């Protein structure tokens, strides 16, 4: 039955409907794949009993022809999403064995539509990282390796567990979150499809917050169609999240295969970095060629404030994080390290509970919000953010339908290879993706090719606000042209 795991979500849905196999069989196949792939460390919590119970329920609903759009489909859930009765830690020691009494809006919508939870997926602690190396459960292995090498590579981050599990056929799709590139960069590193929808498209309720004005949930899947199917269930207005937007969720799948003829695709000249690897450049050109072949028109565009995006992001995101993470104080839940008085309790708990990268960002955030520095840092970064947003608006106002860029400046790298001495080296991974969060726009990463060492590379498409449909249409053109990529199994 192991070949059940290699089906796409769309194929599995068809098979389930045709009763070729049951959800229980499909779920068991994935549970056994997860068991065999523990070396990847993609799952931090396996929930086989719950998975089988959900699968049985899905099977009975399918039998009664009462099945939701994701009935019986086994998924992995990033550990940032609160799952009722199932430990949720954001991969931080500080949450300890926290078990929520509530279910996040996004996951509850997936269960509403019949999906099956296989377990919780590894991620960077509080989603702070680009390599999934900051998790308190240890790093995640990328199912991809360089040709002829046994070095374990990172899957990217922060949704490294999600990307790795989807690429390694451990689940048919996964939830993920993206604050500066945390869906798109790991998708690019693992030859999976990841979409960060428009800010406000998915509810943030029940997702452990990193940076509230940037955080957005989205799926990682093995095809553009699968991603579209998942997003349709995940998205929607939620009165419990004031920043979620009350507009109807379209049938994203209907956008797949829609003609892109006459669409205007922007190529931003500022994304052509000095010293960018030639193969990235080549990939970008190939992407443009494929879209052109499908009838799209390519235009060079300018996003002049791009170079300020990363520095501004590393002010805004830590500022919000420093405040969002203040609730982890050892008083009400999670880890508590005693002290002689309340100040010591705070200090001991937070020093013990937070990892180095989280501590660094909390300190940066506290600093930039301090009296006397607020105007110079936070306020200024917000102004930059407005300018970045305006860059995109100007571009779209000229009739551009979507913007094509590389997803990452390089392919996956080895565990421990980057950022050891200088955190900025790691932060540069998000150079092409942070602008999208700063502007609140939708962005999709689609696998488009391989580098010289046989590692996958992805392209990114950036769309107008709430126009995820165009991204799915264009993404599928690239997918069709580039083909699908599957890692050779080594685990």
């Amino acid at each position: 039955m192991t070949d059940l795991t290699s089906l796409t979500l769309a194929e599995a849905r068809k098979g389930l409907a045709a009763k070729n196999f049951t959800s229980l069989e499909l779920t068991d196949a994935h549970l056994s794949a997860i068991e065999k792939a523990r070396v990847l460390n993609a799952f931090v919590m396996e929930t086989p009993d719950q998975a089988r119970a959900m699968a049985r329920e899905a099977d009975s609903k399918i039998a009664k022809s009462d099945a939701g759009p994701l009935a019986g489909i086994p998924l992995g859930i990033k550990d940032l999403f609160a799952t009722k009765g199932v430990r949720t830690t954001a991969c931080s020691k500080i949450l300890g064995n926290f078990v929520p009494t509530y279910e996040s809006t996004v996951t509850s919508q997936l269960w509403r539509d019949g999906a099956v939870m296989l377990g919780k997926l590894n991620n960077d602690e509080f989603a702070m990282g680009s390599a999934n190396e900051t998790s308190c459960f240890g790093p995640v292995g990328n199912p991809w390796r360089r040709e002829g090498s046994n070095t374990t590579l990172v899957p990217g981050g922060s949704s490294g567990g999600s990307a790795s599990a989807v690429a390694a056929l451990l689940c048919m799709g996964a939830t993920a979150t993206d604050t500066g590139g945390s869906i798109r960069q790991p998708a690019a590193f693992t030859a999976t499809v990841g979409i960060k929808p428009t800010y406000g498209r998915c509810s943030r309720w029940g997702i452990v917050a990193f940076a509230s004005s940037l955080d957005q949930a989205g799926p990682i899947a093995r095809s553009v169609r699968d991603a579209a199917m998942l997003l349709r269930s995940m998205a929607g207005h939620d009165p419990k999240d004031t920043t979620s937007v009350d507009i109807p969720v379209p049938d994203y799948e209907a956008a797949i295969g829609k003609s892109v003829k006459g669409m205007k695709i922007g190529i931003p000249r500022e994304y052509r970095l000095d010293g960018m690897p030639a193969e990235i450049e080549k990939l970008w050109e190939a992407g443009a060629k494929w879209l052109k072949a499908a009838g799209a028109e390519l235009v060079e565009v300018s996003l002049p404030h791009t170079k300020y995006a990363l520095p501004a992001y590393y002010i805004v995101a830590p500022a919000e994080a420093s405040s969002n993470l203040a609730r982890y104080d050892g008083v009400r839940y999670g880890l508590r390290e005693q002290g002689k008085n309340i100040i010591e309790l705070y200090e001991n708990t937070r020093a013990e509970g937070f990892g180095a990268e989280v501590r660094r960002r909390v300190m940066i955030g506290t600093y930039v919000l301090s009296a006397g520095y607020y105007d110079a840092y936070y306020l200024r970064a917000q102004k930059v953010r407005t300018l970045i947003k305006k860059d995109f608006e100007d571009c779209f106002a000229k009739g551009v339908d979507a913007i094509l860029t590389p997803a990452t400046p390089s392919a996956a790298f080895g565990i421990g290879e980057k950022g050891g001495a200088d955190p900025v080296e790691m932060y540069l991974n998000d150079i092409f993706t942070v602008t999208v969060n700063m502007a609140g726009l939708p962005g999709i990463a689609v696998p488009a090719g391989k580098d010289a060492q046989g590692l996958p590379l992805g392209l990114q498409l950036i769309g107008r606000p709430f126009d995820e449909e165009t991204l799915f249409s264009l993404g599928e053109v690239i997918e069709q042209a580039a083909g699908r990529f599957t890692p050779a199994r080594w685990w």
Partner: protein
Amino acid sequence: MSTATHKLLKGSTGDWEMVIGMEIHAQVTSNAKLFSGASTAFGGEPNSHVSLVDVAMPGMLPVINEECVRQAVRTGLGLNAQINLRSVFDRKNYFYPDLPQGYQISQYKSPIVGEGEVIIDLDGGKTATIGIERLHLEQDPGKMLHDRSPSLSYIDFNRSGVALMEIVSKPDIRDAEQAKAYVTKLRSIMRYLGTCDGDMEKGSLRADVNVSVRRPGAPLGTRCEIKNMNSIAFIGQAIEYEARRQIEILEDGGEIEQETRRFDPNKGETRSMRSKEEAHDYRYFPDPDLLPLEFSQDFVDALKAKLPELPDQKKARFVADFGLSAYDASVLVAERESALFYETVLDKLASRARDGKMAANWVINELFGRLNKEGRDITASPVNAGQLAAIIDLIGEGTISGKIAKDLFEIVWQEGGDPRALVESRGMKQVTDLSAIEKVVDDIIAANPDKAAQVKDKPQSLGWFVGQVMKASGGKANPQSVNDLLKSKLGV
């Protein structure tokens, strides 16, 4: 109305003037908290009115309670203040165990209500105008319980997230009396509006008082803030003490250190809590979980159209319509319930034009006097508005005299009943039969020939005769008739 002069404090080196500003924290009257659906009911078991949002569970988000917004706007309108159609919620970051999020959601740079003013009522019908700097909405923290265990502190999060209005005055208050009058007036306005119950014992209304002193007309001195005052009387005591303390330091050549102080009501003194150096850096920034709070002028206008009559308007109306003194009118309107009682009496009077003023006197002197003596609240008055109106009608129409009315009031107070029926059944009716009165008058004059002879020279002694006649008639003779008869018979 006249504008008040304020009290200066005498020091050993001359006069000092107090400059006082206040921050009032008023709990918004609403069923649910500012950003969660949990109940705001007072006195539940600890942690029984707590939602996931109130204890800052991971991934929880605040959602504004629109009723709290309406209440803040109503209050702003009651303070004649600028209503800001766009305001912003900010996070005020600090660590404390009763603050679950690690920040309080408040409004910093853009409050919902801007500048306004309050007219305060002082002794002798004088008034003063105190400027309002702003009003903003914010969350109340939880409550630490230190008395449950020798080694541990507990936290009750029932209050956590309850909506507060912080009302900041301008530094326009000049002495303790004004400060007390300011809090009294704010409380009264909010109780009229139904936006805060003003119950200081339950903590629904608390004040932080900023006090500094200076030579009259000199620039502002350094201030100290007295935190968390929950009694109007203590506010007065704390200000007097604090001003004296500062004057003493300054007159000894010292300097005032800006600090936060606490008032100890047992010792009647203020004590240092923390100095400026220990002050928090709250790292305010706009809360990214909440959109800016925006509403239309129509929304404000609709609330404005439904505002009840407020104490100042009521007072002006009482003065204009019934000729009440400013003082009497402000006594009547100070509490919403008192004003309501008076207005109910007015409604039931046979002629409010004739007896409206008399009704005010009766409510203030007889009723309030009696209630105060017995420590009762107006809502627990044994004499209701209908009964009092009936008593006043009986006086106004001449059925009973004012003196008899007091006896009748006492009977109604003690025994209840219909005043008109009581007058009938107990024979308390005023005697207006001139022949009956005339006989009494004649008897008294005949019995006192010396005094009768003196009256022509000393007209003021006529009163003695009136008193005698009234006494002889058991108070039932009509005083006007007695007066007239005596005058004609004695030839004055």
